[in-house]
C-alpha cells in the first residue's frame, strides 16, 4: 500500500494545496472585516503555493523507485500536479480577492 500511495504523491500534494488555499480563502474572507483580508489571503495563497511547488520538486527529484513504469508515472503525475498547482496559485495575482463578481 505505501508503494501505491507514493505513486500518487503528486496529486495528493495538489489536493492538499487545493484544500488549504480554498479553505483559507473562504475562512479569511468570511471572518476578517472587508479591506483587511486581502493581504492575508494573498500571503496564505502565496506561501501555500510555494510550499506545494517545493514539495513537488523534491518529490520529483526522488521518485523512490527504479522500476521504469512506476518512476515514469510518478514523475509525470508530479509534473501535471505542479502545473495545476501553479495554475491555481497564480489566480491570486489576477482576480480581486474577497468580492463577488
Amino acid at each position: 500500500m505505501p508503494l501505491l500511495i507514493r505513486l500518487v504523491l503528486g496529486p495528493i500534494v495538489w489536493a492538499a494545496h487545493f484544500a488549504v488555499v480554498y479553505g483559507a480563502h473562504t475562512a479569511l474572507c468570511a471572518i476578517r472585516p472587508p479591506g483587511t483580508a486581502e493581504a492575508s489571503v494573498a500571503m496564505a495563497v502565496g506561501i501555500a503555493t510555494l510550499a506545494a511547488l517545493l514539495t513537488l520538486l523534491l518529490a520529483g527529484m526522488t521518485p523512490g523507485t527504479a522500476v521504469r513504469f512506476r518512476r515514469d508515472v510518478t514523475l509525470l503525475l508530479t509534473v501535471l500536479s505542479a502545473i495545476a498547482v501553479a495554475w491555481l496559485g497564480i489566480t491570486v495575482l489576477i482576480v480581486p480577492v474577497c468580492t463577488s463578481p
Partner: protein
Amino acid sequence: MNESPPADLPNPLPRPAREREELLRIWATPRGWRRLTAVNNTVIGIFYIGMAFLFFILAGLLGLLMRAQLAAGDSTLLSQDLYNQLFTVHGTTMMFLFAVPAMEALGVMLLPQMLAARDLPFPRLSAFAIWAYVIGGLVFFSTIFYDLAPRGGWFMYPPLTLTEFSPGDSADFWLLGIGFIEISAIAGAVEIIVGVLRTRPPGMSLDKMPIFAWSMLIFAAMIVFAFPAVILATMMLEIERSFGWPFFTAARGGDSLLWQHLFWFFGHPEVYIIFLPAAGLVSMIVPTMARTPLVGYRLIVVALIATGFFSFGLWVHHMFTTGIPALSLAFFSAASMAVAVPSGIQVFSWIATMAAGRGRFRITTPSLFVLGFLFIFTVGGLTGVMVAVVPFDFQAHDTYFVVAHFHYVLIGGMVFPLFATFYYWAPMVSRRALSERFGRWVFWLMFVGFNVTFFPMHIAGLMGMPRRVWTYPADIGWDLPNLVSTIGAFILAAGVLLFVIDLGLRFRRGKGPDNPWQAGTLEWLPNDVYSTRSIPHVTSREPLWEQPGLARDVEQGRYYLPNAPTGGRETIVTSPVDATPEYVIRMPGPGWAHFFAAVFTAACFLLLTVKVVVPAIACGVLAVLSCLVWVWQLDLGPGKGPVPIGAGISLPTYRTGPTSHSWWAMVVLMLVAASLYLAWMFSYLYLWTVSPEVWATGDSPLLPGVEWPVLSGALLLAGTGLLVVAGRGLAWTRPLRHVSPALTLIASLCLTAATIVEIFGHWTAGLRPADSAYAAMVYLGATLTGQVVITVLIMSLFAIARYAAGKLDNVRRLAFDNTALLGWYGAGQGLVGLVLVHGFPRLL
C-alpha cells in the same frame, strides 16, 4: 517477479480425467428459482447490465415525452407538474440507475475475465449490491406512475425540496430511495478495488494491467471519496424534512448552498466516474481494431489518475452564479482547465494508436461507436471549457446551452462507448455476435439522431431558453430549434429500438466464438462458468498477442490452479504491485442470506419513505440478521492447509492481517467512513462561516463543561486499549483466553458509552438539535460516530458468538480483526470530533 514465463509450464499433461467435471460442478449456476442465489460474476454481471439498460430505455422514454411536449410552443400535452416529475426522474434514473450501475456491472462482468480470476473476491457482496439496486431502482422508478415522483430536479436543491415547499413523500423517495442505492455503489466499489489490486494473474504487475482495470480502479476509488458527500447531504436533508434539524434553513443559521457544495462535491466527480470506465473501454477496443498496442500506455495511466484527482477540484464550477467570491471561482476555473489536460492526453493517444496500426484501422460497429464517441465527446469537452470560463458561464447558466453541453459529454462520453462495448464484448457471453449490418444502422441512426437532437439546444440556449421549462411562448423564435431537437430525439430512439431488436434476434447466453476480433487481452481466453480452465502466467500487456499458444495451454490446464484443490470455489490472490502469488482465497458460492439482506435493506428504506416506521425497523433488523447469517458462513480458517497450484508452488488457503483481502476491504470501508466524516467536518466549518452568530463560543452556556469531552475521550482511549489487549488475549492459553471476547465486548461498550456521554453532555447544556444549524451539526457529528460504534458493538457480539462456537481463535480470527479495525477507526473519528466540537468554539 520474473519477467519471462516459466520454462516449463506450471502443470504437466495429461490432466486427471475428472478435473474439468469437478470445476464445472463447483461453479455450476443454480437452476430454476434457485437462480436468485447465483453469485457467479458472469451470471449476475449480465443481469446487472440488463437492468441498467432497462433503466436507460425507461429514462429515455421519459426524455421522449419531454421532447414531445417541447416540440412546439404553448403545448398542453403534459401538465407542468408531470413535466417536473419527468425531468427529475429522467435525470435521476440516467445518473443513478443507469450510468453508474452500468459501469459497475461491466466491472463485475469483465474484470474477472480480463484478470483471469475465477471471480471477484467477494461474490456475494456484488450480488447483494445488485439486488438492492434492482429492488430500490424499480420502486423508485415506479413512483412516476403514481404521481409520487420527486419534482426537484436530479440535484434536488433545497429550499425547494424542504417540507414547506415539497410536502408529501415524493422528495423522500429520492432521498431514501436513491440514498441507499449509493450503498450499493459503494459495495461494488469495495469489490472492484480489492479485485483489481489482489486477484490479478501471476506476473501481471501494475504496468501490465489492462487499461480497463486501471480505469475501474480509479472509478472505484473516486466512488469511495465522492459518494459519501452526497450520502451526508441526503441524510441531512431527510433529517431536516423529518425532524426539523435546520441544516438548510437560513432563518436558523442553515444555508441551502451547503447542499450545493456537498451535492457537487459528489456530482462533478460523478461525471468522471462515468467517463473514466468508458475511456477505459475505448482504450481496450482501439488497439484491437488498430491491431497494435496502445500508444502511450503510461501516459494514459497518468491521465486516468490525474483526472481522478483533479475532478475533485471542480465542484464549484456548477455554482459560479451563487455569489461566491471571485477568487474562489478562479480556483475552480483553473482546476476545470487543468482537468482538460489529461482528457486531451487520452484523446491524442487513441488517435495515435489508430494512426500507428498495422494496416488500416478496422471499421466495425464498435469502431464506429468509438469514432462517434471521439467526435461527440470532444465537442462536449470544448463547450465544457467554454462554461468553465466564469463570464461565459454567467450567460449560459441554467439555459439549454448547458443541457446541450452535458448531453454531449455524457452521451458522447458514456453511452457511445457503452454501445461499442455491447457490440465488442457480446461474443464473450453470447453464442452469436450482434449483427454488423444492423450495427451500422444503429450507429448512424444514433449518431445523426443525437446531433440533430442536441446541437440545436446550444442555439436555443444562446437565444435564452432556460432549462426545466415545461413550455414556452410560441412567438419568440424558439419553435424551430425545439422542433428539430424533437425530430432528432425520435431518430435517436429509432437507433436504440433497432439495437433492442438486434439483441432480441441474436443475443443468446452461452459461449461464443473464441476471440472473434483477434484481441490481445485475457478475457478472450477460452472460458466457461469457472472462468479460465487454468490461471495464466502473464508477461506482457497483450498476452494473447505476445505469448503464442497461451490460449491452448490455459485451456489444457497447463497453467496455475487447473483444478479445485480445496474442493470449493477459489482463486489466486497476488500482491498488489508485482502480482506475486500469495495465497488461495476460498470464496462462497450461491446463497440466500445476501439476497434476503438486500431485500430487507431495500424494504427498510422504502417503508421509511412512506413513514411506515415499525415495519421499516423490523425490516432493518431482518437485514442485519441476514448479514450476520451471511458472514457466519465466511472465515473458513486454515483447515484445508497449503495447496499446490503448479510449478512447485504451494500456497496457503488462509490469510489474516494486512495482506489479507479481508483487511483490504475493511480499510476501503474505513476510507468511506472517513470521507463521510470529512464531509461533515467541512459542513460544520462551512456553516460557521455562514452563521457565526448561532455558534457556541468559549464561554457559551451551550457548550458543555470540559469534563464531558474529557470523559468521552477517556472512554474512547480505553476502548482502543482494550481492543489491543483483547487481540493479544486470543493467543493466551485457556482459560485465560476466555477473557479476550469479554474484553472485546467491554471495549465496544466503552466506545458506545463515549458517544452517549458526548450526546448527553450537549443535552444537559441545554442544546436541542432543532435549535440552530450549530446544534444540528453537533448532534449529527455524534450520530455519525454513533453509527460506527453501534456497528462495532454488533460486530463484537458476532465475534463472541464465533468464539463460543469454536470458530474464532488465534489463527482463525478475521471476525475479531475486523471488529478491532473498525473499533480503532471509530475511536479515532470520535476523538477528532471531540477536538473539533469542543475545541473550535473555545478558540472563537
